[in-house]
């Protein structure tokens, strides 16, 4: 078969979508768009890296910082959120063995998320809006530095993402709790208690333990979705605050003399943001590891009850951990620095350690296991968090924070290793394991050699980039700064080589996926499903 024909039709006929349900298609739509945004974020990262080595002539300072502003937004909301949403909107009805509450809401969610991220990206690309991702107050409304229309465009994008997020949270909880038409009445309150972990907590005090109504991964999805909802409330309120100032300026009623306490804003904003960074990622990731370990091993999870309890504790930890972001703020009360910043943060080592231990023991007890793509990417993901979480604990120390705060260590060794190695490799594992379920086993992987190459390039590139950025940070290189005289060029060139490995890994993965699905198959994902059902998958046909 010629290259062009294979590219169009895919490996062994590519994706055949006749029997695909709307939910299978929607999940794949989320994943495909999420992967494209990942590619965009990787390109942005490489452009910034090259600019750090030698300033690029076509990029001025304002453009550089606008890329830096949208880069994490594209990576987190456009890529990670999209892939997680797609997987969980499919897995919730699939694991609950009931139809999703609303296919229309699920479809609207991906459109809002993708559109919102693109609009936000445009604010940086067209208007160079660049108050950086933390949106430190009152920087976002500094009209001397930043374009007003650019700011409004940015907030419109944020609104799209947040509305998409709320639709996702509603759809997830409604699917768990509702009674489908013609079904026996579902115990909504009991299901809610089980999802949130209250039943598990009460079981500690009961002589006769009650059975859990929802499977463990659903408990993880439910608890992570609570953090996601809380985060969306905080980000929406920050967006609204900024918008009020924008609209005041636009209509000639400047609010520049009104006052919002910058430290209070920073506390509330970081409280909300950390619900993703520390809470949601660890809860969702732990739940995903448990599900992957069960699917890969074909066995029940080791220490199920402890795992449920750890998920509940992780939720409480995620609500109280934010102050490690404000350790170097002179005005931040010491009690918050010590209790929330140091003590609660250190506790993450325990909750994450429990998740690592349970996952690894579950896999160990099922050996010998074939080193499949899903298993090796899962192990890569675990390794990523085993490196990034201790790095976070190190910097959440009042002494070390004086040295490391605002340096490349934070963003390299901690953030990029957590997201690129820990989270992204876990998501790749989920993609590999869900691929046959989402495509009714019609798609065969084009090349295992390319999958192996993708794995090693991503793993070495991700860890290497984080390590060299961390070394630069230890030597004093700040984040969010441009060095014009090549002060840190050795580290930046080495980090750049690792970044190029990451980008090459993604291109190889994308090529492998396109060749597996075929261009026709990928287009078919975005055509309406021939089968009209709210079920996640069609029931298998009975043998006559």
């Amino acid at each position, binding site marked *: 078969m010629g290259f062009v024909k294979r590219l169009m039709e895919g490996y062994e006929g590519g994706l055949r979508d006749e029997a695909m349900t709307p939910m299978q298609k929607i999940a794949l739509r989320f994943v495909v768009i999420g992967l494209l945004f990942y590619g965009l974020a990787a390109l942005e990262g490489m452009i910034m890296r090259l600019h750090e080595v030698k300033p690029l002539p076509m990029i001025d300072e304002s453009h550089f910082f606008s890329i830096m502003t949208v880069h994490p937004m594209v990576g987190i909301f456009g890529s990670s959120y999209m892939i997680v949403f797609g997987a969980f909107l499919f897995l919730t009805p699939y694991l609950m063995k009931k139809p999703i509450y609303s296919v229309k809401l699920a479809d609207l969610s991906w459109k809002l998320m993708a559109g919102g991220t693109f609009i936000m990206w445009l604010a940086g690309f067209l208007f160079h809006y660049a108050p950086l991702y933390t949106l430190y107050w009152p920087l976002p409304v500094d009209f001397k530095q930043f374009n007003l229309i650019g700011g409004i465009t940015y907030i419109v994008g944020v609104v799209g993402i947040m509305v998409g997020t709320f639709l996702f949270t509603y759809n997830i909880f409604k699917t768990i709790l509702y009674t489908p038409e013609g*079904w026996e009445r579902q115990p909504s309150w009991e299901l809610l208690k089980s999802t949130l972990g209250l039943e598990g907590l009460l079981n500690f005090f009961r002589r006769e333990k009650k059975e859990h109504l929802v499977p463990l991964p659903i408990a993880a999805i439910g608890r992570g979705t609570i953090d996601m909802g809380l985060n969306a409330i905080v980000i929406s309120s920050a967006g609204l605050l900024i918008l009020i100032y924008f609209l005041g300026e636009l209509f000639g009623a400047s609010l520049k003399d009104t006052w919002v306490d910058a430290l209070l804003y920073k506390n*509330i904003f970081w409280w909300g943001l950390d619900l993703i960074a520390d809470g949601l990622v660890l809860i969702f990731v732990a739940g995903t590891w448990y599900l992957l370990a069960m699917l890969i091993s074909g066995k029940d999870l080791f220490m199920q009850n402890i795992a449920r309890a750890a998920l509940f504790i992780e939720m409480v930890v995620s609500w109280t951990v934010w102050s490690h972001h404000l350790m170097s703020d002179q005005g931040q009360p010491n009690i918050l620095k010590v209790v929330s910043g140091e003590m609660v943060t250190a506790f993450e080592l325990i909750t994450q350690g429990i998740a690592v231990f349970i996952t690894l023991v579950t896999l160990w007890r099922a050996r010998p296991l074939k080193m499949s793509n899903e298993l090796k990417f899962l192990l890569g993901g675990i390794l990523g968090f085993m490196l990034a979480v201790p790095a976070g604990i190190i910097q959440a120390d009042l002494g070390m924070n004086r040295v490391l705060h605002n340096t490349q260590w934070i963003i390299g060794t901690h953030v990029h290793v957590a997201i690129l190695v820990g989270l992204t490799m876990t998501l790749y594992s989920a993609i590999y394991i869900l691929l046959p379920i989402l495509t009714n086993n019609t798609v065969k992987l084009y090349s295992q050699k390319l999958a192996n190459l993708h794995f090693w390039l991503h793993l070495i590139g991700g860890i290497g980039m984080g390590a060299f950025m961390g070394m630069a940070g230890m030597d004093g290189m700040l984040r969010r700064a441009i060095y014009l005289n090549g002060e840190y060029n050795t580290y930046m060139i080495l980090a750049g080589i690792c970044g190029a490995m990451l980008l090459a890994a993604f291109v190889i993965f994308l090529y492998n996926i396109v060749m597996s699905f075929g261009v026709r198959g990928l287009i078919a994902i975005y055509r309406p499903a021939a089968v009209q059902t709210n079920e996640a998958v069609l029931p298998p046909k009975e043998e006559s």
Partner: protein
Amino acid sequence: MIYGIAVLILIALTLLFYFTIEKSVVALVLAIVTIIVGYFVAVATIARESEGEGAEGGRPGGS
């Protein structure tokens, strides 16, 4: 629907906190507790609206 209204109220409330809280750890912690409790109430409205749905004797299902 009620969930949406509850979420909008919580966003407005958080916005109010930005303008009203000044240099108080207690007020900050109370604001955070309010948002958490408020969101649990919002999620509980989904359980409440789901409670009345369905009928006895239908198809059994769920996990």
